[in-house]
């Protein structure tokens, strides 16, 4: 039983790494840079709270960018490829049953 617990624990740690890598501040794969981005955001949040900076205007051009068709399609394709990959185990299930 101890072995299973250990295995689960390792699994959970791996899942946490995956979560950090895929869903939180994904512009960097370096954890230290991620931490610094966290610091920066929290500092800005506190500055907002203290009134030291104003909220950014999302209508200002400097706070926007253009989403290119190729880029949009590329992330769409990535999502679809990931979905089709994830559907494979389901298709394999019945072989073993």
């Amino acid at each position: 039983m101890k072995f299973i617990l250990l295995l689960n624990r390792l699994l959970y740690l791996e899942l946490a790494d995956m979560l950090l890598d895929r869903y939180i501040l994904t512009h960097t794969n370096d954890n230290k840079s991620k931490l610094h981005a966290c610091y920066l955001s929290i500092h800005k949040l506190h500055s907002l709270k203290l009134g030291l900076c104003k909220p950014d205007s999302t209508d200002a051009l400097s706070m926007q960018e253009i989403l290119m068709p190729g880029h949009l399609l590329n992330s769409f394709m990535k999502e679809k490829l990931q979905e089709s990959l994830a559907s494979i185990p389901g298709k394999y299930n019945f072989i073993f049953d």
Partner: protein
Amino acid sequence: MNMTPEPTSTRIPQKTFRDTGSYNPGHLPTHEQHERYKYFGKAHVESFNFMLNAGLMRAVEDLQPIYFNRSPNDDDDSNEHFPELKFWFENLTLAAPTMSPAECRIRGVNYASSMTADLCVQLVNYDDSDCSMDSNVFRMRRKLGSMPLMVMCDLCPLSKCSPSKLVQKGEDSCEFGGYFIINGAERLIRLLQVPRRNFPLGLQRSSFQKRGNTYSDLGVMFRSARYSGCQTTTTNVFHYLEGGMVTIRLAIRKQEFLVPAYIVMKCLLPGLTDEQIYNDLLSLCRLPEHVEMFRPYILLLTQMCSVSAAGTIEETNTSSSNFQINTQEECKFYLGSRFRLILQQTNAISSDTTDIGKLDRRNLLDEIYFITQ
């Protein structure tokens, strides 16, 4: 009767688009003019070319491999160790289109090219020390369906055509592309305005208060583009809660979750102490008079977070109320256990496959398609 006779030399005879013999070259744009016409569609065409030349390759490399075990759930017999199957894609390629854009318009079909990739399968045996060896990888070339092509992209034969050649192929002499042909109709992906990437955007929105009881209307949005260069973006919002706590909002498959920033920060570095977080945050203040302004908030953050994180644990994990999360490993264990179900895709997907029983084993891999409209 004072009709002037038509000059016979400039009249263009009525011809079908395949007949090119006597088209007056004086009506065609010069090479230089045609290059200038292409600027109209340049943003579209070049972003699509980026996708063909680099983006798709990076996206495929960045895909998460799927691990599949015979018993994906934690059953009673799970201490008996089955080897796992690992699936992933390699070498995604797009073939040249089989039809010309003009033909697609007339026939009312998609201007598309077929996409193929290597589906790789590997037996992963954890008992074996050299499981990472490349020897037991099976690669199968699989069709993945068709992918709409942009007119005048690098794969499109029109991209290298001169104006006279374009006319010969039934296109306009000033063709600059940048659109798709879907069911014979020309369709464009519009340029969209989105928030700036990789930048903390300070926001004040009343909708933030609806997230929970103590949520304030302040937030910092961070839209980050993935480091692999595949142009996928994720958006995180740092919420400020009355009482000093900060939570990070993240979206996994369109579902939104809120995680205390404290736990995330603790996960990121081994041996990161509260004191270090406190000092690091304080060191961001540039002016000395700001230090005293920020200090209570930062103190509150590091104190409140550890208290509220423990509170969250107590609420959700009834079995171990005195569970401590202080170290990196404990925080990771907390995150991993919270997000296990949503992150383990194999468990989530295998339940909603209904009509699989009809397939037989040989055709199985041919059935792994996805369709883009």
